[in-house]
């Protein structure tokens, strides 16, 4: 297959890929995106643009991803099935591709209960597996879900999420296989703090031959403080921050905790680089984009 995007090209060449993250603003200020892109450009291969993450209303991921394209960086447009039915999903995918958006990450989406407007009705017309399949089928058959021939079919490089730290653990590899069967080309994982569990997950994925069918990018988020480590462990759905990481952060004077977080993150990236079946790293430096340059440089990825 001809590379569908620069991210695809890099991964297909067997190079260790780096993706970053850019959360759209709570408003219409395009400068927020431009500023984040300035910090990330040159250090990542592509940048995820989140879709109303944690169900907090923000600028749409399509519009923000189009701004990323204009700024000269390649976006991975996130799309959740929480807010759109299949009609809107297909329409938005076509529109996004027409704006030069070539990577998509297909997600269920955080429940609106976590967000700023918990009274909202959710959609969940199709699930994330069927979103993956929809993008794949549009790309490979040139038809929409009804079988209608599209004049230009979106040709997107398709991503999906995997959370090795969610339960039931035994099912997580089956779920990965299901997403690959549906058409996932690459996977970005939940933030890795529990390396033992991640290693076990990737070992099983390797054993089943799954890592030869899909590119896996391990997710990392540098911790800024011990408080953040505790917060993520308790409050963020599907997150697993082991006690030893929290203790390690606690053991450092407050003013040096961010440095310790960077150190932990670099150690994680170092391990990921050596792991069979891992093809890259997804750095989610949430509202801390400036740290990405340091991480990428010190990890020897640049």
């Amino acid at each position: 297959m001809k590379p569908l995007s620069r991210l695809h090209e890099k991964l297909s060449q067997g190079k260790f890929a780096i993706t970053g993250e850019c959360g759209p603003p709570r408003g219409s200020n395009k400068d927020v995106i431009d500023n984040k892109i300035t910090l990330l450009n040159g250090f990542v291969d592509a940048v995820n643009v989140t879709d109303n993450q944690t169900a907090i209303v923000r600028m749409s991921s399509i519009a923000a991803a189009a701004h990323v394209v204009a700024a000269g960086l390649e976006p991975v447009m996130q799309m959740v099935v929480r807010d759109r039915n299949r009609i809107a999903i297909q329409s938005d995918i076509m529109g996004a591709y027409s704006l030069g958006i070539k990577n998509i990450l297909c997600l269920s989406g955080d429940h609106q209960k976590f967000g700023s407007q918990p009274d909202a009705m959710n959609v969940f017309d199709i699930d994330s597996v069927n979103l993956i399949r929809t993008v794949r089928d549009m790309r490979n058959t040139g038809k929409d879900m009804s079988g209608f021939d599209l004049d230009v079919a979106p040709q997107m490089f398709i991503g999906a999420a995997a959370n090795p730290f969610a339960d039931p653990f035994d099912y997580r590899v089956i779920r990965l296989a299901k997403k690959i069967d549906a058409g996932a080309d690459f996977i970005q994982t939940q933030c890795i703090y529990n390396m033992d569990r991640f290693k076990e997950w990737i070992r099983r994925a390797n054993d089943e031959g799954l890592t030869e069918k899909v590119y896996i990018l391990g997710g990392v988020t540098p911790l800024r403080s011990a408080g953040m480590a505790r917060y993520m462990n308790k409050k963020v759905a599907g997150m697993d921050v082991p006690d030893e990481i929290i203790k390690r952060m606690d053991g450092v004077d407050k003013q040096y905790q961010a440095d310790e977080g960077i150190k932990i993150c670099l150690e994680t990236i170092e391990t990921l680089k050596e792991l069979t079946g891992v093809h890259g790293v997804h750095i989610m430096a949430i509202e801390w984009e400036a740290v990405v340059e340091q991480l990428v440089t010190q990890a020897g990825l640049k």
Partner: protein
Amino acid sequence: MITGSQKPINEIIKLVEPYKKVLILGCGTCVKTCFAGGEDEVAVLASALRLSFKQMAKSIDIEELTIERQCENEFIQEASPGIARNEAILSLACGAGVQAMAKRFAKEVVLPGVNTTFIGIQESPGIFTEECSGCGNCSLAIFGGVCPVTRCAKKLLNGPCGGSQNGVCEIDPDTPCAWHLIIERLTTLGQLDNLKTYIPPKNWNTSLSGGPRKLIREDHII
């Protein structure tokens, strides 16, 4: 059963305030079982309303009656004389019962006294849980008898989301993850392979998305 819970007394007072004579009409089947609108609840609510109006120095005549089911014409008929004597009916039935009364007594005021909640079961004494959303196309056979359409907060059909931890749903520590239950059940039944089956997008046309539904039994039409 259809479950429901009685509206807060202050809301009910506001609903009945404009009327001098009110019939509180209980329903003796579903809402009786979930302690929202049976004979006992009618009696307690009537006393509470009488007391409240007395304290407000307002007069109101309250009559009490409970029929077997407000959703069936056969039983509704029994309420006719009581309805004729009053200005408004405060129905403690589910939404179907309230509407059946409004259809049958086109000129009468019918007020809802209950918030209808869901189709569910009494899981343990006093605890009712939602089990079915009446989607019109039952797939319980492949999910080991646990419905993800109703019990998964994201209606996921191809496995749990990344928010399921320790058997609990991400939305609330008191809500079990439906997919965790499905996997447990399928493990017990030796049908875990069901999970590998790809489930295509659901046809929601048989659900409320297709508009208000009608069930037609030609063989019973007279």
